[in-house]
């Protein structure tokens, strides 16, 4: 159900700063791919290039080829079209405080003009169950605002919201970094299950997390993709010395 992503020679700039340098990789469908690296290495920028979110910054620019399935997302489609096929979960939970839980989950559909009540109800239930949040909020769907639940629940709400539009790709930018260990574990379980249905790209600072959930992992350093390999190979027998240094904690 997911789709694969081929990136070739992707370069990105924020103003004059060259943030991504010639990045090329192939993200397989229905798998979880982790991206690790020290702060500021460009992994978040890379992920935002996959759904053209970096364009929301007026001084941002990208060049290169990113193909999702058959189409080039920069040349063959508009940002809005791409973002309807690619879901994104951010580092800090950002549910809409002025909307109920139900409306939050349904927002991707309602605000794009979808009206059919019955289908919306089903989609909301399905998404909340996928995000393992249904049991906790099913009685308060329309009564509680999206911001009145705990941090971990908010993040799962954001995941449900992203899933409700039935994306083909799910991008997650350090989704558990702002959460407590229990919520983090819940979210990792989620990713583990979801990856058979979607293509997941997860940015993480936490190497153990990458090891737990992802089949393949990429190591970024200063805007370059240093190494990209099967997760266990990357962590036990890295090819590049820089990767080894990072993994053993010599920097970052």
């Amino acid at each position: 159900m997911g789709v694969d992503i081929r990136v070739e020679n992707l370069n990105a700039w924020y103003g004059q700063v060259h943030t991504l340098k010639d990045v090329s990789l192939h993200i397989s469908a229905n798998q979880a791919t982790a991206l690790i690296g020290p702060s500021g290495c460009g992994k978040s920028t890379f992920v935002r290039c996959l759904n053209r979110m970096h364009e929301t910054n007026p001084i941002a620019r990208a060049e290169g080829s990113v193909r999702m399935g058959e189409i080039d997302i920069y040349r063959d489609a508009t940002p809005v079209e791409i973002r309807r096929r690619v879901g994104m979960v951010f580092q800090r939970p950002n549910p809409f405080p002025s909307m109920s839980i139900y409306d939050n989950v349904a927002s991707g559909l309602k605000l794009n003009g979808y009206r059919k009540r019955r289908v919306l109800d089903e989609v909301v239930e399905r998404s909340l169950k996928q995000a393992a949040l249904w049991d906790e909020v099913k009685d308060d769907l329309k009564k509680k605002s999206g911001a009145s639940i705990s941090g971990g629940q908010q993040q799962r709400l954001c995941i449900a919201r992203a899933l409700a539009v039935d994306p083909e790709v799910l991008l997650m930018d350090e989704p558990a970094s702002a959460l407590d260990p229990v919520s983090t574990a819940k979210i990792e379980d989620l990713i583990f299950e979801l990856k058979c249905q979607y293509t997941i790209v997860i940015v993480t600072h936490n190497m153990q997390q990458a090891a737990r959930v992802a089949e393949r992992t990429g190591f970024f350093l200063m805007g370059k993709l240093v190494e990209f390999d099967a997760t266990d190979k990357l962590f036990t027998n890295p090819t590049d010395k820089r990767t080894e240094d990072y993994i053993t904690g010599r920097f970052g």
Partner: protein
Amino acid sequence: MISALPERGARVEQLIKLRRSAANHFVTLLAVVSTVIVLAPLIAILGYLIYKGGSSLNLAFFTHVPAPVGQPGGGMANAIVGSGVILGIASAIGVPLGIAAGVYLAEYGRGGVLGSAVRFTADVLNGVPSIVMGIAAYGLIVLKQHHFSALAGGVALAIMMVPTITRTTEEMLATVPHALREAALGLGIPRWRTILSVSLRTATPGIITGCMLAFARVAGETAPLLFTAFGNQFWSFNVNQPIAALPLQIFVYAVSPYDEWHRLAWAGALVLIALIMVSVTLVRLYASRGEIKGGH
């Protein structure tokens, strides 16, 4: 002389300490007294209004038009209604324009030259005396139509509301966290829908507050109405005719030589103050609640 110095030194030191302490106490006293002096007129004004206005307030005030000069009774019903009409026109023009301009400034005009120019213009307009706004509306509408009208009065007040509402709307929208916009854009929701359903919706309590404050401010304005709405002794619902307004009527009655009209002026002032105070208090309550709700 060395032995004498420490003694004198100690005395001088003591004197300095006393002087510093006295100065401190004096200023404290000054501050307290000033506060009392300043709050006294407020209490006096409000007290006087309630006393003089309350005794003249009766049902007739709200239902009758002014009686002929010299005759007792009568009311300011037409002025209250007239104010309503003028404020309705002013809000219908001023609120949408102001909010839309505020949306532009907050969502599209953050960094550019155009945004700064609009912001600057709004701030300049906020400092223009209201009577000058009246002159502008006079030239625009009264001169063209060759008569005074409620419409001219409404326009004069509208151009006072626009810059105020623009700035408060912009301020409120700026408090909406950027993360919310990103979440919406990330879902593939178009920019215009994001602004409407996320930014505006989240900032709604604050924006309403801003509009109510602007409304309360122009509700008490007299100068711009002097030669636009002009005033009217009788009922009038025609937007193209001169119309009575509460602050205007209060002014005319207050400077008149008739006791009966003075009485009505006090009553009118009380009603005007009551309406404005209610708005200001509501705004404060609503604003503080809105902040708590919108946050978490």
